[in-house]
C-alpha cells in the first residue's frame, strides 16, 4: 500500500506522531489526536492558526516537552532545531556561534572549525566569520542560525516559523536557499509556518491544523517536482494548490 506522497510502507520514517495529545499543567488542551508521519527525505509543512499547537508539536518532537496522550516516535539519530528567533549569542562572533552546538557535543576543535567553515559557506556568509550578531541583518542572523544547525548534519530538521520575522523578499530568498540545502542534504523536515504559500513552495506535503485544540484537518501532497524554481510561485497550478490548502485552513468545518 502506498502512503500519500508516493512513499511505500513506513519503514523509512524519521518521525511519527500517533494520536498525540498535549494538555498543559494549567489545563489548556493544546493538541488532540494528532497523526503525522515524516518519512526520511520528506519535507512536511504544518500550517495552522495561532495557538493551534504547531510549535508544541516541534517541542514534543525535540523532547523539550512530553506528550500527555498518544505516542511520538523519533527515528532520526540527529535532530536540528531552528527557532523562530535566530537565538544567537551576542557575545560570540558568527564563527563561534556556528560552532556552539558542536562545542556542546564535545566535537574536537579542528573538526568543529572545519565543519563550521563549511556550514558558513553553505549559507553564503563567507567573509562574515568575525562579525558580531549585532552587525548583521535579520536575514543574515537567520542564516547563521541555520548554519549552526547544519554543523551537526541532522537527519531530521525541526523549523519553528524561522522566516516569520523577515520581510517578504528576504523570506523568499531564504526559502530558495533552504530548498537548495534540502536537495543537497535530503534531510527530513517538519516546518511550521503561518504562510500557506511558503508551505506549498517548500514542501512535499502540507498538513493543515485546526484552531485549539489542534488536530489535523488535512494532509495535502504537493505535486511539484524538485528542484523548484522561484517562478513556480507565480504559476496557476501553484495558486490552485495553495487555494485548496487555504480553503481547508480557513473553513475547518468544510
Amino acid at each position, binding site marked *: 500500500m502506498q502512503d500519500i506522497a508516493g512513499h511505500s510502507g513506513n519503514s523509512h520514517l524519521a518521525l511519527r506522531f500517533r494520536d498525540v495529545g498535549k494538555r498543559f499543567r494549567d489545563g489548556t488542551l493544546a493538541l488532540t489526536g494528532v497523526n503525522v508521519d515524516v518519512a526520511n527525505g520528506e519535507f512536511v509543512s504544518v500550517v495552522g492558526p495561532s495557538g493551534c499547537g504547531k510549535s508544541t508539536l516541534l517541542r514534543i518532537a525535540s523532547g*523539550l516537552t512530553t506528550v500527555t496522550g498518544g505516542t511520538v516516535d523519533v527515528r532520526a539519530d540527529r535532530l536540528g*532545531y531552528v*527557532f523562530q*528567533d535566530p537565538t544567537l549569542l*551576542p*557575545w560570540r562572533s558568527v564563527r563561534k556561534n556556528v560552532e556552539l*552546538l558542536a562545542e*556542546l*557535543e564535545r566535537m574536537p576543535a579542528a573538526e568543529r572549525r572545519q565543519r563550521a567553515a563549511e556550514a558558513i559557506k553553505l549559507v553564503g556568509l563567507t567573509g562574515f566569520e568575525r562579525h558580531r550578531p549585532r552587525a548583521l541583518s535579520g536575514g543574515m542572523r537567520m542564516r547563521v542560525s541555520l548554519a549552526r544547525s547544519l554543523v551537526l548534519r541532522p537527519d531530521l530538521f525541526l523549523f519553528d516559523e524561522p522566516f516569520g520575522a523577515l520581510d517578504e523578499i*528576504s523570506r523568499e530568498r531564504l526559502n530558495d536557499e533552504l530548498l537548495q540545502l534540502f536537495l543537497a542534504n535530503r534531510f527530513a523536515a517538519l516546518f511550521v509556518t503561518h504562510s500557506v504559500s511558503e508551505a506549498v513552495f517548500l514542501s512535499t506535503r502540507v498538513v493543515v491544523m485546526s484552531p485549539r485544540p489542534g488536530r489535523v484537518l488535512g494532509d495535502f501532497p504537493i505535486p511539484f517536482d524538485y528542484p523548484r524554481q522561484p517562478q513556480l510561485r507565480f504559476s496557476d497550478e501553484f495558486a490552485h494548490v495553495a487555494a485548496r490548502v487555504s480553503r481547508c485552513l480557513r473553513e475547518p468545518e468544510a
Partner: protein
Amino acid sequence: MTATGEAVEVRTRTALRAGQVRRRGGRWLGRWGPPSIVFVLFLGVWYLFSYVLLDSDRRFLLPPPQAVVKVAFLDADNRADLLRALGLSTSVALVGLVISIVLGMSVAVLMSQARWIERSVYPYAVILQCIPTLALVPLIGFWFDFGYNSRVIVCVLIALFPIISSTFFGLQSADQEQHDLFTLRGAGRMTRLWKLQLPAAMPAVFTGFQVSATLAVVGAIVGDFFFKQGDAGIGILIDLYRARLQSEQLFGAVILASMLGVVVFWFFGFLTRRVVGGWYGSAAYSPPP
C-alpha cells in the same frame, strides 16, 4: 559609531570609518566646549562669592580658587599629605570592592542555581542593605579594630548588595530559547552557567560594578570618620582640616575625594563599554542587508 554610541557625522573631506573619531577642529570643540564654558562660569561664581560676598575675616568659609590651589596643591607637604591619604582611601575602596565582587557574585551564582537557595538567602541580602551602616559601626569597632580593616568592612557592607542583585538579575537574562538550545544538546549545569548565563549576565554585572565601585569610594571616606586609627585616609584629613579651620586644605581634600569618585565612575563606564559594548546594537546603526 564611537564607543559612546554617538552618531558619526558625514564629512565631505574624508569619510570616517566606523569607530573613528575626529579629534581636531569642530568636533572636539563641539564636545568639550560647552562643559568648559560652564566650568569657567562656575569659577566666576566662586570668585564672586569669595571676594564680593564674603569679607576678609569670613573668607575662610569659601577660599578663592587660587588660594586653594596654592596652599593645598602647590605646597609640597600639604600635597604629599593629601596624595598619601588619597592613596590610602583608594586602597580601602579597592579592597572593599574586590571583596564585594567575589562575595557578591558567588552568592548570586548560588542563588541562581536553585529556587530554595534564592528564597533562603535573598531576604537576608535585602535586610543587610536596609540596615543603616551607622548602626553597625560600634559593633564593627568592637569585633575588629578601629582602623583599616573596619573601614574595608564598611565598604563591603555598602557595596555588596548591588553586586548581588545585578549579578543575580543578569544570570537570569538569557531567554528561554537560548536555554532550549542548551537543553537540546543535553548541556550540564556548569556548561550552561559558564557558556550561557555568565556571559549573558555581563552587561548587568558591569553596571553593578560601576554602582558598587562608586559606593565603595563613599564607604571608604565614611569609614574614615568612624575608624580613625591607623594611617589617615582622605576622610580623616577632611575631618582634621575642618577641626583646624584649615579651609584651603579642606577644599583641596574635598576636591580630591570628589575626583576619586568621578574617576572611578568613568573608569567602570569605560570598562563596561570596552567589554560589552559590541554585544548589543543601538537603533541608530543600520547594517547593510
